[in-house]
């Protein structure tokens, strides 16, 4: 026989189980379900990412020459010695004489984050047209070289007809 007391007991205990057991379990289940959905998406993205990487690698092969040029344009380190050597060679090719390398600084670039800015100051002597050729050859070289300032003055040696030029340039590296 169904007693009212039993009916209430069954009903109340089932309500208590639903509220305190089933609902938290359901909540955990939903959380895990969301996690699985995210993980599945991550896996799909990872697969797509690897596919894209492989595509990009094959695309890159078409531009190897340009990429090599970019590598040379922004070197991995400031390489002051090679920069001075490059200036010396450029001077020789333009008919100028490298008189002095006055100073250089290497510091983090404020305009281009992640890049180091090398500022180099040097003096050359020669004639006006050769100086123009020197600046032009440096500015158009594979390495990114920016002329910041330059000044022209008479050579200290009065006997010399040549002019003296002070130049400040900037190059960039990582």
């Amino acid at each position: 026989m169904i007693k009212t007391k039993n009916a209430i007991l069954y009903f109340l205990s089932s309500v208590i189980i639903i509220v305190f057991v089933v609902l938290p379990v359901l909540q955990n289940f939903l959380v895990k379900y969301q996690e699985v959905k995210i993980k599945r998406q991550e896996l799909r993205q990872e697969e797509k990412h690897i596919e894209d990487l492989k595509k990009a690698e094959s695309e890159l092969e078409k531009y190897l020459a340009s990429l090599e040029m970019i590598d040379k344009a922004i070197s991995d380190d400031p390489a002051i010695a090679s920069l001075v050597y490059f200036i010396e060679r450029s001077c020789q090719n333009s008919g100028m004489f490298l008189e002095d390398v006055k100073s250089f600084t290497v510091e983090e670039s404020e305009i281009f984050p992640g890049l180091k800015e090398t500022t180099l100051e040097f003096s050359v002597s020669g004639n006006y047209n050769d100086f123009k050729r020197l600046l032009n050859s440096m500015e158009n070289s594979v390495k990114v070289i920016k002329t910041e300032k330059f000044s022209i003055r008479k050579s200290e040696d009065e006997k010399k007809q040549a002019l003296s030029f002070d130049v400040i340039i900037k190059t960039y590296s990582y």
Partner: protein
Amino acid sequence: MAIEIIPKKEQEKPSSITAFIYYLGKFLLIFSVILCLAFAFFQWRFSQEIKAIDNSILIRKTADVLALESKIDNYGRKTRDFVQLIQGKKSSKSFFQAMEDVIHPDVVLTSFEANVSENEINITAIASNITVLDQQARLFRSRLNQTIHSFDISEFSREKDRTVVFPAKLTLIAGDIVCYSEKSNSMEISVDYVNAFNVYLFHRNQKIAGPLSSGSQYLFEGLTPRTTYELHLRNGDSASIIPFSTSFCRTSN
């Protein structure tokens, strides 16, 4: 027929509501237990799946893939940096051209300082007489808005031999305005420091184009010949206005 001496109590029939509550309670109890078990099972399955996916992602990230990833990232970064550097690059050529075009034949420069990044030239020069100095100032003025943005000859001194020594400060325009097609009335403008400036084209206080903040060369089409336009270079709160006339444009070869 037997006669019931002590009559039994008639069984109380449960009310329909009590029966409903009873069966509902029983059903809910069984159902909630089943649900609990099912949810717990699926939760366990999901945990297993998450572990499997994590493993699978780890397996995919081999040394080769990581190396390839870093190689491509590296090239991407280098290419972006290279583009930025090239866009902001200025040539000293325009400084020489500007000065060669504008220096009077009877003026001798005794010092010449160019600040390429600021578009500034500071000179000290000797003019053969005061008339030549005036002609020199006129020459600078005639190049305003073409190659020279502004110039300043605020002082000079006259020597005993009647020569005039004067310092001058010139600011060149930040870029090149080149008319390349007179027929279509379109022109190409290359503006330096595109990274720092937003470029607008104005005509009689009316904005015609802009902001143009990417790329170093802009093409403006349908411009009216012999008309004055203004190029507004804005960087934050500061703005630099460069007026120019289409009739003054250099024709590129």
